[in-house]
Structure formats: C-alpha cells, structure tokens
C-alpha cells in the first residue's frame, strides 16, 4: 500500500503543480476515462515547437491526478517531438510506484489527453494497445532476442 500511496503521490494529489488553465492556449485537450469517470484537461502554449506553458485541470483519483501533475512538471520546456516520443512506460516509470492493471488507465489518462492534443501516438483508442499484429511482431522480436540470434 505505502508502495502505491507514497508521500510524493499524495503530495502531487493534494498540491497539484501547474494546476488551472491558460487564457488562450495554443493547444487544449480533454478526455474522460469511461470506466471510472476520471477526467483530465490539459492546456499548452507552444513556441518554436517547444512547450512554454502548461496547465491541467481534472478530477479523479490520486493516481490520475498525481500522474497529471507530475507529467506537467516533466514536460515543461520539452519539444513537441519529445512529447510525442513519450510512451506509457515512461509515465509509469515517472510515477515510480507499482500500479496494477485496473489502475493503469488512471495513471495513463494524462498521457492519453496530451497525445490527443498534440497528435501523439498514444490516444488510448483502438489500435493503440490492441493490435494483434504489433503484438505478434513484438512477440517474434522478443523470441528472436532471447534466443540470442
């Protein structure tokens, strides 16, 4: 338990960084996790392909809100290309706690919203997680790697 609800998670939950919204954001995106109703909205200002300002708003559990708060800290000053390169695993690593399958969608909602806003690959919709070819390919790759070929 302490594992999941570490001090810094609760801290981000209760005192979220970059909380709020921008007056006239260059980019605005929002989405809901249909399974639990968690909601995140992200505003970005961007200059020369680089984030100059970021704010988020939302409601939901400690995991989803802390994840959003930490993500906004992480992406301050990043380029859009860097943001597009962010993977779900990066976000889970950033959180630094063990997250069970039922709560992963909470943890990844902020990335999903971010990528929806900037046209990144992780929209959390069809084809993202559930492509059987990708999986077959990944599996083949893994087998090749582990067989030492």
């Amino acid at each position: 338990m302490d594992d999941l609800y570490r001090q810094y998670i609760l801290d981000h939950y209760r005192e979220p960084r970059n909380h709020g919204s921008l007056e006239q954001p260059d980019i605005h995106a929002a989405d809901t996790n249909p399974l639990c109703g968690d909601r995140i909205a992200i505003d970005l200002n961007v200059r020369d392909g680089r984030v100059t300002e970021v704010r988020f708003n939302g409601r939901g559990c400690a995991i989803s809100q802390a994840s959003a708060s930490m993500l906004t800290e992480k992406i301050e000053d990043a380029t859009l290309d860097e943001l597009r390169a962010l993977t779900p695993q990066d976000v889970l690593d950033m959180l630094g706690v063990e997250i069970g399958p039922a709560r992963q969608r909470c943890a990844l909602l902020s990335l999903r919203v971010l990528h929806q806003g900037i046209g990144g690959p992780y929209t959390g919709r069809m084809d993202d997680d559930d492509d059987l070819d990708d999986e077959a390919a990944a599996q083949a790759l893994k087998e090749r790697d582990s067989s030492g070929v």
Partner: protein
Amino acid sequence: MKTLEPSMLAALAPREDFPILAREVHGKPLVYLDSAASAQKPRQVLEAMENFQRTSYANIHRGAYTLSEEATAAYEGARKKVARFINARNVREVVWTRNTTESINLVANSWGGANLKVGDVVLLSEIEHHSNIVPWQLIAARTGARLAYIPVTDGGELDQEAYARLLETERPKLVAVTQMSNVLGTLPPVREMIAQAHAVGALVLLDGAQSVPHLPVDVRALDCDFLAFSGHKMLGPSGIGVLWARRELEAMPPFLGGGDMIREVSLHSSTWNDLPWKFEAGTPAITEAVGLGAAVDYLSALGMEQVHAHEQALTAYALERLAAVPDLTVYGPPAERRGGVCSFTLGDIHAHDLATILDNAGVAVRAGHHCAQPLMERYHIPATARASFYVYTTAAEIDALAEGLMQAREIFAL
C-alpha cells in the same frame, strides 16, 4: 436506528454454499461487499448448470429427441419458477433476455418504437441507472419523444410532490423508475406511484435489478406493467435476465428477428410466434436459464422476507459503524427506508483510492459513478465508494470494512 441483534450477526445463507467466499485476496480472507454489482453463486446454482450440461444439454424447442425434450423442459421449467417467484399470472408473461439492460431496451424499442410520437413524454427519475436512461434517450431521438425526470431530494428520496405535479403537467405515456436505487439504496413508494401513474393513463416500467434479488416482489400486488431484472444479481449466472410484462407484450411488435421467434417466414414477410417466444430470437441462454431457476429455488428456500430483513439489519449496523469513521459521508435515506447498499465518501480520498486500499485488506467494494452519472452530478460528487450486502454477508465483514476505512485515513494522513 435499531442496533443489530446478535442473532443477526451471522450470514443468512450457509457461507459454505458459496465456494468463492473461501478464497483469500492479498493474503486476507475475501470480504465481498459488491453484490449490488453482481452476486456470488451458490454451489446449488453451479451444480444445476454443470449437471444440465453433463446430462441433458441440447438446443431447445425444435428437437424431437429425448435430450432436446429434456432441455426444453428444464428451460421452460425455469421460466415457470421465475414466474412464480414474482407472482406472475401466467408463465408466458416472462421473457428471457440477457440482463436488465436488454429488457429495458426491448421495451424502449418495441413498445416505445410503436407507441411514442413526437412530443410524448417518458418520465424517469434522477436516481436511475444508465440502463434506465440511455435506452430512452435513444428511442426519444428516434421518435421525437421527450424525457422528463422526477427530482431526488437532498435526502436521497424521490420528491413525491414533484412527481404528482409532473404527472399532471407532463402527462407521460410511460413512467420508468427503479424499485431500488443501486447507489443510495432508496426504495421509492412504487406501489403508490404506479397507482398515480395509472390514474393519468401512463404505463409503468419498474427497474427491478436491485429489488427482485433483495425484496419480495409481487407484480400483481404492485400492479406494474413491466418489470426488468438480471439473473447475475440474484445468485444466478451471468448472461440471463428477465422482462416481465402484463399484457402489453401481445400487441408489441417484435424486437430482434430470427429463429424461434417466428411462426412462418417467407422471403418477403413473416409472422410471429406466440408469447413469450416472439421476443426470444435465436438460441437463448439455455444453461443460464436453468441456473437462474436454481437461484430462484435457493432464494425461495431462504425466504425473500428473511433476505430483506437480514439486509436491513446489516444496513442498520453498517450505518452505525460508518457513522463512527471521521470525515465519512454516507448518501441516501435512513436504514429503515433503504435496501442493503451504502455509498459513501471519505474526506478528500477519491473513491478509487479507497477501493484500492480496501482491496489490500481483502475488502471488495465498488468505486465510481455506479452507472448513475446524473445522480453524481446532482450531489456534486465525482464518485462514491459503495458497500452492498447479500444473503452471505456478515456483520464481521462490515467490521472489516470499517477497519479498512480507518487504515485509509492513516495512509492519506486524514
């Protein structure tokens, strides 16, 4: 609020009947407090299905051989058990569906599609489950009908004055309300509400998803027109539900088309089978109907009055224990006017976090909007945690819940 009698501390049903209750979660004994979402199944139900599939399984109705006769008898026999359970007049008033949701969609599409015209009103309430809202939104969009809602009071009850007014001003064609709220436990006075609706010429559909599993429900005494419920919430298997209807079914056009619901098919037109089969297209959930029949036997043996009394006692006890947890808010009416459901929030801890922490203590509660987003909006809360009780629930399990909540307070430093 009366205190729990010691004799009520135990489960009403033998816990050994429920194999899953023997399991552990995170090294703790499972405390299953999510029966309002779906109930666990006694071995009597599992064995009935298992035996059926090992000895008598076949497709029904159309077979002139022994297995198919046996399967048909078991399937139709289960229908009779369910008909008796809700005191239907006639076996053929019972239509098998997948669940409450499909039952309501059936009425919305078939009855609604045939009877709703532009400007007609369907009257729902603010405490409805999405399953008793969205089908009406869809058919309203198709027919031009309009939805109106009976408001809920701050105390979690349906505003009866507003209801009387709405019947007068809106003149609804149908009132569709729940007999028990899955979030608040509210038990609206449906008997009176039905009489009032009939007085202005409206039909009444009752969402019995929470009531039929937990209370004695008598469709003749209630005098409702439609009743929808699910097998999986009443100790039965998933995949089977019921639509009961008094007489309206006869005039209603079919819903799904296909095998078994027809009388004669030619290339360009068809005629329909008798009730209830007219509404059962394709191979139905045969084994699941048999399982639901066994569940009804099990509940009948316990006695639905006893089931209700057991849950009311547990609920009274739970409300007492929860009242002792600081920063905790329970939603809904007092124990004597609610079923075995307690929704609550604890300080600024989100319901999902609560559920995760409780799970770590072996305690399974549901967290979220409980498919009742409009109700959540009404109370300005994003989500609640919900503990719900059934025939296998004990007071000791409610103690485990209360202890888990104290732990959550510690973790979140409340």
